[in-house]
Structures are given as C-alpha cells and as structure tokens.
C-alpha cells in the first residue's frame, strides 16, 4: 500500500514535470498493443502456403540476378532426382522445385517451401547420381526442418515480418477455391523475401548444428530413396579437395569445413552401412551432364 502510494506520487510528480505529449497514455497503450501484436506475429508459425510464397519470392529474386541454366534436359533430371528423394521425407507433397543456376561457383541453396537451387559448378564436380542425390537430400532436409525460415525469422526487420501476418489475413479471404495464388514481386511476403536477400541472411552461413543435422537427415533420405548412402560423403570429399573461389558465397564459405562434416557424419554411418551396395548410377548421371 505504501509502495503503491509512493508510485502514484512519483507518477504525479513526473506528470507535473513533463509536458503533456510525453505522457500520452493512449499513445503508449496503443504502441504497447502494437508491439504486442508484432511480437505475436513474429512468433506465430507460417502456414505452408505462406512458406511456399515466401520461397517463390526469394527464388524469383535470386533468379533476377543469377541465370537459370538453359539445359532443359539437366533441369528435368535434377527435378526427378530431387523429387524422388523428397518423397522419402515427411513433407513429400510440397511443390518441390529444383533449379540449376548457370554459374561456376560451387553451392546450393534451399528456400522455404521446397525450392532448391544448385549451381552448375557443383554438378560439374560430382561423379554420379548418388552424389547429386546426397547434395539435394541435404538441401531437402533444410527445407523439411525449416532452417532457412528460422534464419529469416531471426534476422528479418520486425515491421516487415509483422506485415506478413497482417496481409495474410486479407489474402486468405481473397483466395478462391483453396487454390494457391503466387504473389511474386508484390505484397508482404515479397517484401520479406527481398529483405532477406538484401540483408544477406539468405547467403550467410546457417548454424553449424543445422548443417550437421541436414547432413544426417540427407543421408537417411538418400538411403531410403535407394541410393548408396555414401553419396553425400562423396560430395564432402569433392569439397574437401577443392578451393573456395573467394566470392563470399562459395560453399566453402557458407558451410563448416568438409573434414568436420565428414567427422560428424561418420557417427551416423553404422545405421546405414548395410545399404552401402545400393546403386550410385554413374552412367545415367554422366550422360545427362554431358561427360559420357
């Protein structure tokens, strides 16, 4: 009681010593509510539709700067391998899309909602389909585990992030027949996508623990798909014997060192050792990539 009185007195003294606008209680309350709703929006889960739209917008932004390979045969092949592996995951029905970027830099990128970009430079380093499956499976695991989404969430501008939720409510009403409408280049999700690309979160390394987790899940997914479980280890071996290109987004600069990843992966391998004689499909791979 004494404390309440003291607080009230202090408040009265403060009120007396500040000009009125500084104690705009209504404004403060509104601001608090606003902050509260933003916090709520920031912590809510994305719906699958929102995740897909965000991924589409990020992909469209990246494709605005990085050219898609014109090799239609290769694009279809990578999509078949990728979809087959993704069917082994707990999110088999996402609109999985795999795109080959025409660049020598070695890397691959996963976007929320099931879009995976892989550079021609990475494909050129690989020796068989089980290695491609291993690389794609690692990216698929990132999508399944929503790693990029959580990285975007933690680095996004709070206002941009909150606007996604505010707009989503309106869009749900506008949607017809439950069909998915892509809003590329406009709207709150597009802003969040562009924000993510511009602030670089999309091109920065994820937590090491996320990479190791994606490696482990990747091996499981590729093994379920019937491939030699050592495909991803082969990819890491390739990375281990190459030089980064110093571009800042080369795979050597956005991932833990290959030897560290191999050391982590070794712990999992006894679980899949029995599948080591599954196909690697070298012939089919080399034919499509034009090395046979």
């Amino acid at each position, binding site marked *: 009681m004494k404390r309440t009185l003291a607080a009230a007195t202090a408040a009265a003294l403060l009120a007396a010593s500040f000009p009125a606008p500084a104690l705009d209680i209504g404004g403060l309350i509104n601001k608090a509510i606003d902050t509260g709703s933003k916090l709520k929006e920031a912590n809510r889960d994305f719906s699958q539709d929102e995740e897909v739209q965000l991924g589409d917008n990020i*992909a*469209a*932004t*990246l*494709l*605005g*700067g*990085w050219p*898609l390979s014109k090799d239609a045969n290769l694009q*279809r092949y990578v*999509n078949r391998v*990728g*979809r*087959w592996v993704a*069917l082994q*995951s*707990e999110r*088999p029905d996402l609109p999985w*899309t795999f*795109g080959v970027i*025409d660049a*020598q830099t070695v890397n691959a990128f996963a976007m929320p909602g099931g879009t995976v970009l892989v550079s021609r*430079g990475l494909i050129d380093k690989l020796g068989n*389909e*089980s*290695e491609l499956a291993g690389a794609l499976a690692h990216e698929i695991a990132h999508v399944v*585990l929503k790693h990029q989404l959580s990285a975007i969430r933690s680095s996004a501008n709070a206002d941009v992030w909150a606007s996604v939720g505010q707009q989503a409510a309106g869009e749900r009403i506008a949607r017809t027949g439950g069909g998915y409408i892509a809003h*590329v*280049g406009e709207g709150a999700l597009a802003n969040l996508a562009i924000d993510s690309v*511009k602030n*670089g979160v999309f091109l920065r390394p994820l937590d090491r623990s996320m990479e190791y*987790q994606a490696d*482990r*899940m990747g091996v499981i*997914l590729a*093994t*379920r*798909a*019937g491939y030699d479980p050592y495909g991803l280890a*082969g990819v890491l*071996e390739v990375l*281990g*014997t190459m*030089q980064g290109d*110093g571009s*800042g*987004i080369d795979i*050597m*600069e956005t991932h833990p*060192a*290959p*030897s*560290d990843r*191999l*050391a982590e992966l070794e712990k*999992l391998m006894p*679980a899949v050792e029995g*599948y080591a004689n*599954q*196909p690697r499909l070298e012939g089919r791979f080399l034919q499509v990539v034009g090395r046979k």
Partner: protein
Amino acid sequence: MRMLRFLLALLVLVLPVAALAQDQAFTNRDTELKQRADAGSGTVASLRADTAVKVLARAGAWTQVQAEGKTGFVRVFHLRFPATVEGSSSSSSSGSNPFAALGGLIGGNKPDERAKLASTGVRGLSKEDVKNANPDAQALAKMQSYRAGKPEAQRFAREGKLAEKRVDDPEAKAGR
C-alpha cells in the same frame, strides 16, 4: 653447379604448387590401404595417421588413393582434406591445415580478383548480383515448368532400379 642451383630454384617454385594440388588428402588415423574397395580384400600397406595421399577416385565408402608409392583403397572417413577458402585459413577443427597459409599463392590477394581467376568460362555467383536484383517471375515460372510430379519421380526411380527402403532416422525427424 649452375644447373643444380636452377633445379633447386625450380623445386622451390614447384613445391608449393604441388602441395596445393586439388587431389591432396591425409589419413586422419592409422589405417589400411586395401587392394579393393572391400574391407575383406588384401592389405597393400599399413598407413600411419597423417600420411599424405593422392586421391585418384571416389568409390562410395572407399576412396582410391596413392600412398607411399602404392595404389589402393582407404575408407573415406579415414581421410581428412585440406580444403581452404583462398586467402584465409580453413575453419576446420579436425586438424591443422598445413596449406592454409599458402592460400594466397593462388590468384591475387583481393577476393574479387581471386573469384575472377577461379572461374573458368562461366562466371561465379556474386552477392551483388542478387542484392539489387528485381524478382524475375518469368524465370521462376520457367524453373517451375521443370518440376517432376510424383508418378514421374517414381517411374524415374524404377528406371534406375532404385528401391525404396524403410530406414529409421535415429533422430526420428525424417520419419514418415
């Protein structure tokens, strides 16, 4: 004498390049060089940890290497690789990287200069290309036109004799 000096100079020039060869690896423990990619095959040589090997070919769980003048197979997990990002030290914690300090020998010292030198024909990716890019809805639609449906993926798997397996994920997060 002059010839010897020339040869020595040549050696000094050539050594770092040879050491930086892209097929270089080291054993990360005492291991065996096997005749075939099979633990049951004969042992060609016993290799001590940190033996330098030359990687010849990848063969799933095994890697064909040349070590101490002999050729054979070593388990992939028994190797560590000196991968580096040029001009900076490797972030590897699984062993010191003897070549990291030499990274600057390839290409220039500026990252963009190195990126240019490292790319062959097709250029590399750059952050700047996308930071100011406008979303390309057409390219997105083009990429999505290559999607494979479930039946197509299943047919493709059958053609490759890929049989689905029930494999439990120890972390139970990939479980169907």
